[in-house]
């Protein structure tokens, strides 16, 4: 089991990132969160302790009769009220019933809303429908009136009044929890748990609950803010807290009734209410942000690849205003990428190379395949030709010659004229590139009008239908009237090819155009691309990981590994006489070559990510032919034979040319 040992070794050797810090730790990194937590903690502590410490304040009917309605002074820090009582003491004691009301509501909402939501979302179907119906019923009840009725029957009963509010609010939380639970239900790990035979309570508590907690915590902070408003409002009306006992709402009411004599009085309780509500709001916001960070930390690498920005203005020194005639490649070459490199700047400073030393050419009308595993830089290279780079990335070296111009030196405005018009893109996910809100014909006409500014709306629509016909969509007029969601995957890919053709480009970049499609649909799309090449003389740069598609479509193959071009050869040569060990190994790993009942030759380990590249040959660690010399320094791309490129110091060692020596069935 050597392969296993190698795998274990790589697993144990590679330093793993530390797990993302827990939610509360991320939360405590935010100063605004710390301030609101401390503030709310102090208010709650006062609310719990102070009324017990000073029961005389709670029961005090009248205070200093000589000093009624005085402003702040050293004797009474916040002044006195209409009965001469100390406002500061009453404010502190008032925190008690206020926070108690908030606590009751939060507790009721949590205990009712969370389990109901989880059950509705997890079981779905009839259970969900019944719970939904009940929720609608509760939500349609007029909340304030119910609370007033409760208080009319049980006067000044805060538990029942705020509890009723909690019951009326719980369906809102249940709905949020339900939608989260619904999405967790779709996860395959829940299916796997069901298959393993565990009970639904286990699945609910171990799989669903942790995923729900984040949004519940945020919701609870919001609920607390709202409950505070409701509690203060009812106390203001004098319905919750009986007469001598202080509450913030009662203090505000007292202030209002005396506003003509002492306008100061509404401020202390008013400010306390506002600040506490604000603290709950800030806490909710911070909780939500901290929760999102937990996911985005892990997803940051994916985001890096997904978001792209224009390549120009990237800080790369201009190569000179006009390149000398002999600098660019000859006229028989449409696109020439020379020693091209792209890097991202790390947050800590320094650079991580994404691709380096990329070199290939595309002749007019030629189909060139860019092949390799994921993470090898195929897409980064291809989109850089469009003048698009990943977020935060810049060109570090080289040129991209296209029709006598160096694309890396062009401005964004110049690139925009080339993009779509001269170089067009077809992506793996055609649906993503179509706007779901507009009809196909309208969207295509927009693209047509952008390329031909003088065209009328009607002419553009007619041209759009022609384009749809040219990609063999049956009944193009009818397709033009459809919305993207009404198309199948194959039809959507035809539409996106039609759009790419709108500017009549000379080069089409097709990024895994058939990976998401069924095999019969793939054959049709490949036929279409071949036909377009034939009829329009258009060159295609085809990115693929599928050797079959490569063999079917391409004239030349450019093999990439860990950010570098490692081999470039005609299509026959790649399959019959591959030179680079990676090409050989990847070809052999393809199940087509191994007959049933046989083990497939494998490549141990995985492709190193950018930043983990070795100093020497990038493939050295996984290569069966590696020697000490391979790891010493970077390997240059050499020309081992006319029309071929290979990046391997052992390129002339005959032992490497396994496929040629074995000679499978003599294709010459």
């Amino acid at each position, binding site marked *: 089991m050597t392969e296993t040992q190698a*795998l274990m070794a790589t697993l144990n050797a590679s330093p793993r990132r530390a797990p993302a810090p827990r939610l509360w730790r991320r939360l405590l990194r935010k100063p605004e969160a710390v301030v609101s937590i401390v503030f709310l903690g102090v208010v709650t502590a006062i609310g719990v302790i102070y009324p017990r410490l000073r029961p005389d304040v709670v029961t005090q009917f009248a205070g200093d009769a000589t000093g009624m309605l005085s402003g702040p002074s050293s004797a009474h820090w916040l002044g006195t009220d209409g009965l001469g009582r100390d406002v500061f003491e009453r404010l502190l004691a008032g925190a008690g019933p206020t926070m108690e009301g908030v606590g009751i509501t939060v507790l009721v909402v949590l205990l009712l809303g969370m389990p109901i939501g989880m059950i509705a979302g997890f079981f779905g179907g009839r259970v969900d429908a019944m719970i939904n119906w009940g929720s609608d019923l509760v939500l349609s009840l007029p909340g304030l009136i119910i609370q007033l009725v409760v208080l009319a029957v049980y006067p000044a009963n805060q538990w029942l009044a705020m509890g009723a509010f909690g019951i009326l609010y719980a369906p809102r939380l249940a709905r949020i929890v339900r939608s989260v639970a619904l999405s967790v239900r779709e996860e395959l790990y829940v299916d796997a748990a069901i298959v393993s035979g565990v009970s639904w309570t286990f699945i609910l508590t171990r799989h669903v609950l942790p995923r729900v907690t984040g949004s519940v915590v945020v919701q609870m902070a919001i609920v607390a803010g709202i409950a505070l408003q409701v509690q203060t409002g009812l106390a203001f009306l004098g319905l919750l807290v009986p007469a001598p006992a202080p509450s913030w709402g009662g203090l505000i009411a007292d202030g209002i009734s005396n506003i003509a004599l002492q306008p100061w009085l509404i401020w202390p309780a008013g400010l306390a209410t506002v600040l506490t509500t604000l603290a709950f709001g800030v806490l909710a916001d911070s909780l939500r942000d901290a929760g999102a960070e937990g996911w985005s930390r892990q997803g940051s690498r994916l985001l890096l690849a997904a978001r792209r920005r224009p390549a120009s203005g990237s800080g790369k020194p201009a190569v000179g205003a006009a390149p000398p005639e002999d600098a660019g490649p000859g006229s028989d070459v449409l696109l020439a990428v020379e020693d091209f490199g792209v890097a991202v700047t790390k947050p800590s400073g320094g650079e991580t190379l994404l691709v380096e030393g990329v070199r290939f050419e595309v002749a007019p009308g030629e189909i060139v395949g860019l092949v390799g595993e994921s993470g090898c830089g195929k897409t980064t290279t291809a989109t850089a030709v469009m003048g698009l780079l990943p977020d935060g990335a810049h060109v570090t070296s080289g040129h991209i010659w296209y029709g006598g111009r160096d694309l890396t030196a062009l401005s964004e405005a110049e690139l925009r004229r080339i993009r779509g018009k001269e170089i067009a893109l077809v992506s793996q996910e055609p649906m993503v590139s179509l706007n779901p809100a507009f009809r196909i014909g309208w969207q295509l006409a927009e693209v047509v009008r952008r390329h031909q500014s003088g065209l009328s709306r009607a002419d553009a629509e007619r041209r759009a239908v022609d384009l749809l016909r040219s990609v063999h969509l049956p009944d193009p007029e009818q397709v033009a009237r459809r919305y993207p969601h009404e198309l199948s995957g194959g039809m959507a890919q035809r539409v996106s090819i039609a759009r790419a053709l709108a500017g009549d480009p000379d080069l089409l970049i097709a990024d895994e155009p058939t990976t998401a499609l069924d095999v019969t649909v793939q054959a049709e799309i490949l036929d279409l691309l071949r036909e377009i090449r034939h009829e329009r003389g258009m060159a295609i740069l085809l990115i693929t990981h599928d050797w079959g598609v490569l063999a079917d479509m391409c004239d030349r193959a450019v093999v990439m590994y860990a950010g570098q071009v490692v081999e470039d050869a005609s299509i026959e040569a790649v399959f019959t006489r591959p030179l680079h060990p990676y090409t050989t190994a990847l070809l052999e790993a393809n199940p087509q070559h191994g007959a049933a009942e046989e083990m497939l030759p494998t490549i141990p380990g995985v492709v190193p990510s950018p930043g983990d590249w070795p100093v020497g040959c990038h493939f050295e660690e996984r290569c069966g032919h590696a020697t000490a010399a391979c790891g010493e320094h970077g390997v240059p791309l050499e020309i081992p034979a006319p029309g071929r490129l290979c990046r391997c110091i052992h390129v002339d060692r005959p032992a490497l040319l396994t496929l040629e020596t074995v000679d499978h069935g003599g294709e010459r």
Partner: protein
Amino acid sequence: MTAVAAEREVLLDVAGLSVHYRGEAGAGVVRAVDDASLQVREFETVGLVGESGSGKTTIGRAVLGLAPVAGGEISFAGEQLTRASARKRRLLCADLQVIFQDPYSSLNPARKIGQTLAEPFRAKHRRSPAEGVEHKVGRALEKVGLDPEVADRYPYQFSGGQRQRIAIARALVTDPRLIICDEPVSSLDLSVQAQVLNLLRTLQTELGLSYLFVSHDLAVVRHVSHRIVILYRGRVMEEGPADAVYAAPAHPYTRILLAAAPIPDPAEQRRRRADAAATRNERMHKAVTAVGAGCPFAARCAHATAVCEAEQPDMETLANGVRVACHHWRELRSVEHGGRR
């Protein structure tokens, strides 16, 4: 090989299975699987092939009890699964496991690998293994070529290929007899795919496992399968020993499917493409919305006649052990033999 396989005990028997879903409002019932039958024997890999909408994944899910069965019977090791009580199904769970396509969604990111792998032992009515859960989990991880210490780590610390190994370890932890593999290598890169395919083969030999291998990738299925089943719109079109089906496809749909997959040999592929162009027919492009009473493939088939539109073909068994559901397979075969040099 085939003769030996025929003598082995039938482990999974799916007979006339139908799975229906309620479609969009007013669209009526979607027949995801329609009267499909297949068998998996001990120590055998059966490849379930079809394009999207063929019902291949649904059959696997129905066997696992994750999709509602509208008709037909599923039995496993002689026990009825379709009408089994929850308790009985839980007992059978240990023998019947699954590996899903997406190694990212199939592991709960918030739970340690060890917790996920120990999950089956939390099931009711199941005895914990004598040697202890931890030991059992460690053994399963070793079987897939991972260090038992990875039990203390979280899924995000692993690459796609490693996660798929962990998913395989989870399936192995209860010592199952049959594993449903639902596109287990589709999301993996070529070099990693080869590693996982080899692992599945090694495990089959060492542990005597059977696989129901669901995939859209014909090359992968050919590599792993002893027998294959070709599905189209929820129905079995053709079924038989993998070599026989690939060498001489009897059903027109199987031929189209095999011809459509490009092979990694430029010269051979050029020849295949020329062949395909010669037999190209416009019916293939037709968008088929409704299936009539007849053969579901009739609307797209170049050889369809009136009888195909009207009558559902019966399964017929050929000399080479292949079973095919086509009214015209005899004519097509003789044309084939006459046409080829």
